[in-house]
């Protein structure tokens, strides 16, 4: 695949990443009404719309921050597609009446938008698996990983846990190593 060119709408993603009030407000101004209308017309209410809107923005933020997401398609159709898909998934889970799985008639959506949305969904699926496995670790391991990966100073965390810095590092890699093993096993299971 040729290296995808970054779309000029990347500034939205950068704005989210920088928690830039002006750009975030712009996102709400431009798109909140559309998401609201879509969800209220598809068995949801305004609260649902708000939740979906917020969750999708957080997904984008996380992807940008931790997985260096770069936008290769226009922001508006991409973001609206994410919101719609997230809502459809939620309806499916609640097993409410089937909704028209028509990704959208109104918007003229290009291939680039679909492929980037698919990529992001795949990432979310993976994350869900990692988190499921994480929940299976012992409480102590979860505690150590959670703290060791925060933005707090490692020495301070060791003190907080009442252990030495060396022990914290050793324990952290042990816990993460067993998490990796569990995830690999699970992935083999679903592939094999």
């Amino acid at each position, binding site marked *: 695949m040729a290296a995808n060119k970054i779309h000029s709408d990347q500034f939205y993603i950068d704005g989210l990443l920088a928690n830039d009030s002006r750009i975030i407000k712009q996102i*709400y101004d431009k798109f909140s009404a559309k998401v609201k209308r879509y969800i209220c017309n598809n068995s949801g209410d305004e609260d649902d719309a708000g939740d979906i809107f917020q969750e999708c923005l957080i997904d984008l933020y996380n992807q940008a921050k931790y997985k260096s997401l770069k936008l290769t398609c226009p922001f508006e159709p991409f973001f609206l597609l994410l919101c719609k898909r997230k809502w459809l998934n939620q309806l499916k889970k609640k097993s409410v009446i089937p909704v028209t799985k028509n990704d959208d008639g109104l918007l003229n959506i290009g291939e680039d938008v679909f492929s980037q949305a698919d990529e992001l969904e795949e990432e979310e699926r993976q994350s869900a698996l990692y988190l499921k496995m994480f929940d299976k670790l012992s409480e102590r391991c979860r505690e150590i990983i*959670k703290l060791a990966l925060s933005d707090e100073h490692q020495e301070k965390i060791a003190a907080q846990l009442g252990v030495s810095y060396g022990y914290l590092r050793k324990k952290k*890699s042990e816990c993460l190593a067993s998490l990796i093993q569990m995830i690999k096993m699970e992935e083999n299971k679903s592939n094999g």
Partner: protein
Amino acid sequence: MDKFSEKDIVNYVDGEMDSAERNTFEAQLLHNQELQKEVALYRNIKATLQSHVADNRADAQFKNHLASLNKQYFNKQERASAKMRSLPWNKLWYVAAILVVGLLVWAPWNKNLYQQYSNTQMVSFAERGANDRSELQKATDAFNSGDFKKAKEILMPLLNNDQQNDVLRYYLGISQVETNEVKIGRINLSKVALGYSLLKYDATFYVALSYLKEKNESACKEWLHKIPSSASNYNKAQELLKKLN
């Protein structure tokens, strides 16, 4: 060493190898595709954990920012009343039927479980001194007299100046739930519940109550189950669970 363990991979990515180890590792990494894949896998797992599990101040600020915008842009009341007005007369039978069913489910003649369990006093940790009326003391007094709106107004700026303060966050969360900002209140409470504060399980209990307030019993139970038998409010949680069943 030609075979690396998962631990080595973690140590390499997290920058915890000494230079000799790192050189050996990187020499292998150059042409060992299997190893490259493993490194990529751990990088991916780490990114997920950082974004979903670990606390990060900037992330929390971003989420708070969205939560406040959400309140501005998504306002449920308006919508609900608009729906009511547009109901045609011949649908009123449905409304009546729904009301009856709702009444049976809600069963106001049983005591409201939320109110029964949501009675919490804010313990003042302000030192009573000459200038007794510190902000914290004012918040405590407002909270304990049931004036959650005022408590909220005082707690909010205090928490903004001291974002790591779980005690403030806990009481702010409760005040928000009490004043019908259930979702935002729950974000604050879950932050305490998922952390390592002394109030961890008190906050867990309140997250459960916030769901009860929204009549979401299954989520309520799920949170009650998180309270271990070692916690001081275990019995209370079990008692509520029994009533819900």
